[in-house]
């Protein structure tokens, strides 16, 4: 499992981190944390385009996205 911390980064850095992690580790579960809605939505859209299952849980204003 790969864990990424993309909190506080401007667009499109969170998206690029996830994109790079997906490309470098095919099929592996990726967990990424972001703290605003835009990167959350961008990452979910990326996961959907790559046909991966993604879920979000929100804890203390942090979105924790799991891509399986």
């Amino acid at each position: 499992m790969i864990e990424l911390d993309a909190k506080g980064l401007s667009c499109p850095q969170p998206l690029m981190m996830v994109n790079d992690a997906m490309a470098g580790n095919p099929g592996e579960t990726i967990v990424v944390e972001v703290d605003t809605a835009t990167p959350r939505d961008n990452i979910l859209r990326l996961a959907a385009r790559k046909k991966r299952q993604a879920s979000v849980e929100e804890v203390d204003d942090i979105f924790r996205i799991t891509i399986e």
Partner: protein
Amino acid sequence: MDTRKKEITTLVVCGLLAGAVAVVLAIGGNPKNMAICVACFIRDIAGGLGLHSAAKVQYIRPEIIGIVVGALIMAIVGKEYKATAGSSPLTRFFLGFMMVIGALVFLGCPLRMVLRMAAGDLNAWIGLVGFAAGIVTGVFFLKKGFSLGRAVKVGKAEGIILPVVLVVVLVLSLTTALFKASTEGPGSMHAVVLVSTLGGLVFGAVAQKSRMCFAGGLRDTFLVRDFSGLITIGLLFGIVLVYNLVTGGFKLSMADQPIAHSQALWNILGLYVVGFAAVLLGGCPLRQLALAGSGSGDSAVTFLGMLVGAACAHNFNLASSTDGATMGGQIVTIVCIVALFAIAAVNLKKRNA
């Protein structure tokens, strides 16, 4: 699949609303092909505040205030308001400063570029080449690891300051004679305050909801083949194009376009600065306003950079006129390009820090 459909529906509705606002503001009396322009209107506000003395471009534009407040309201309603700050604020100030100077050398932000394109202004189509090239350059540095570092959560009030200050400025502009207002030129052309304010509010809400960003739309297309951001922009373009065709406002030419010049090189390089700076900032001038309304202190600082940059552009004769780019504007555009490369280079490889 349902989520995707819902998302696309939202983008379509937002694009239609944005186009409708642009048409209403054009009919309302805003300058030609400038129904709504973030750079020009911030420049007018700078003039209204007396930060520059170009008499023809002074007016407290309610649209800008409306956009920030509309984004704030939408962010609160959508539970997306979050006060953050601390990602290289001074660097962002100067990126905003340069972004607005590039825009005023071209004569419009990317939003006005699209409005001009929809009116048949070929100078804007030529400028698009520079804008896209600036975005590609920014993407190159992003791929190399460019980052301005992390913003962190700050007190909720931090994100409210800019909207409150802007509302105070708007109220003062309506109730006192403190501020300047052009009696001729583009600054004197405007829709009535109520229409401008409502138009701005709707545009800001739509921009926040749809994440409308003229740099981001192209950037994400280049970067990850995500075309979503182009939906709202495409609809805005389409609606304004139809409006121009119907009303006879469409004229396919380079010469004699309203509030535009036809020096291809400086249209390209001006928008190159805008595209490059926008990618380094994480969003175009409009997006910076929407983010500032959503609580980003960094984008609020970027707004201040644009305000000061716009004032300097007119105080030091850097902004273009319909005759073309000034000597100072040409020199500073080149200086901005060099400075953008320097800023991009010194902020590499910090992404995982």
